[in-house]
């Protein structure tokens, strides 16, 4: 990224190759909107170019990237307040479905579906740290840098988020079982 900042804009292509996939994952898990996430990936990379002078070189490029991505998310949710947390079932079915209707895969599918819903019900603050921690596999320290806070605060937040998720998940699971019965 320092090379990009120095004017070697073509190196941006390397960064795209390396980070466009995890970036899409982050944005998708945050919004559950496939198309919008793809668009936002482009926006994030555009902003990297535009604001490349703000990259100081201190700390990881990843932190800076997620920092930009969060800003893009904020803009996105402002623009799409109504649909911001809509559950995009079609996208999930697209990715998960297609397998043989074996019991095991059916069950797994259901579990994933429930987890998905549970994630969607989390506050964005909690969902964010979980996504960064679990999906993007960032260390607490790195997340702290993205969110501009301390590692301890992140540790606590991730822990709370995990408990919250578990609670929601169990509620959904119980509700589903009850409904089934």
């Amino acid at each position, binding site marked *: 990224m320092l090379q990009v900042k120095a004017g070697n804009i073509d190196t941006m292509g390397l960064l795209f190759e390396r980070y466009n996939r995890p970036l899409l994952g982050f944005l998708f*898990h945050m919004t559950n909107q*496939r198309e919008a996430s793809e668009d936002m990936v482009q926006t994030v990379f*555009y902003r990297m170019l535009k604001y490349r002078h703000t990259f100081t070189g201190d700390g990881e490029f990843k932190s800076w990237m997620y920092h930009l991505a969060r800003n893009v998310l904020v803009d996105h949710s402002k623009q799409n307040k109504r649909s911001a947390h809509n559950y995009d079932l079609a996208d*999930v079915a697209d*990715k*998960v479905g297609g397998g043989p209707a074996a019991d095991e895969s059916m069950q797994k599918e259901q*579990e994933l579906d429930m*987890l998905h819903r549970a994630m969607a019900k989390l506050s964005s603050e909690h969902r964010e740290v979980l996504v960064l921690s679990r999906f993007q596999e960032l260390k607490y320290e790195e997340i702290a840098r993205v969110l501009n806070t301390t590692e301890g605060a992140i540790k606590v937040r991730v822990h709370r988020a*995990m408990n919250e998720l578990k609670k929601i998940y169990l509620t959904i699971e119980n509700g589903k079982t009850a409904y089934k019965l």
Partner: protein
Amino acid sequence: MEKLPINCEQINNQLTDWLSNQLPDAERVSLEAHLAQCPTCQAEADSTRQLWQLMGNLPTPEPSPMARVRFQAMLDTYKDTVSENQESIFDNLVAKLRQLWVPQNALRLAYSLVLLSAGLAGGYWLNHANSPTVAYKQQIDTLSTQVQEMRQMMMLSLLENPSASERLRAVSYTQEISQVDEKVVEALLTTLNNDDNVNVRLVTLEALAKLADNAKVREGLVQSIARQDSPMVQSALADVMVKLQEKRSIKPLRQLLHDDNLNHLVKGKIEQSIRDLS
């Protein structure tokens, strides 16, 4: 649900750290040791781990093939705009420099060029005013010759005018005629000898005196002495003869002295003139 001992709550808090492999080795060992002997914590850990693993199985969409194309297009466009910006910045700079410097300089330059060429033209004109080009000179010569001819004609015709003042004017024209030909001299001598008006004759004498370089004029003047009867013209003629130092005039002047009608003032004047001439 029995209340978890302090240790168990701590373990609970560390589960996520443990699952995400962010627990220091020493704490991980003690956590795993605790889990082995605490079924409650073990159950909690299992459910958390299940969920954690399930999260890992959550599908993450693959970037569409279009993503790279879009990115590349965006990058190219951006590069273009950046270079355009740089160019336009450069252009702006040049334009600003032009605005700052060139108009004033151009004005100054234009002004000084105008001054310089005006000076050159003035100098050229002054130097060449007295010697215009051949064609120009020829034109002027032709023109002036034509004017001379016209004046001559006018003079000759005016000399026959019944009005004395018109005849006077005609005589005065001879002063403006640079080259007087025989016709004019003849006409003037005729006027001098025959004109009724004394004034016209006097002016004609004056005009002829200026043309005294011409031999014919001199001869005419000498011959005219005997023909004049006006004391004023006689006296004027005598003066002209003295001025011209015309020796041939002594004889006709002496003859005038024998004329009985001669004015006694003119007589003295002529005697004086003869003395001056001889």
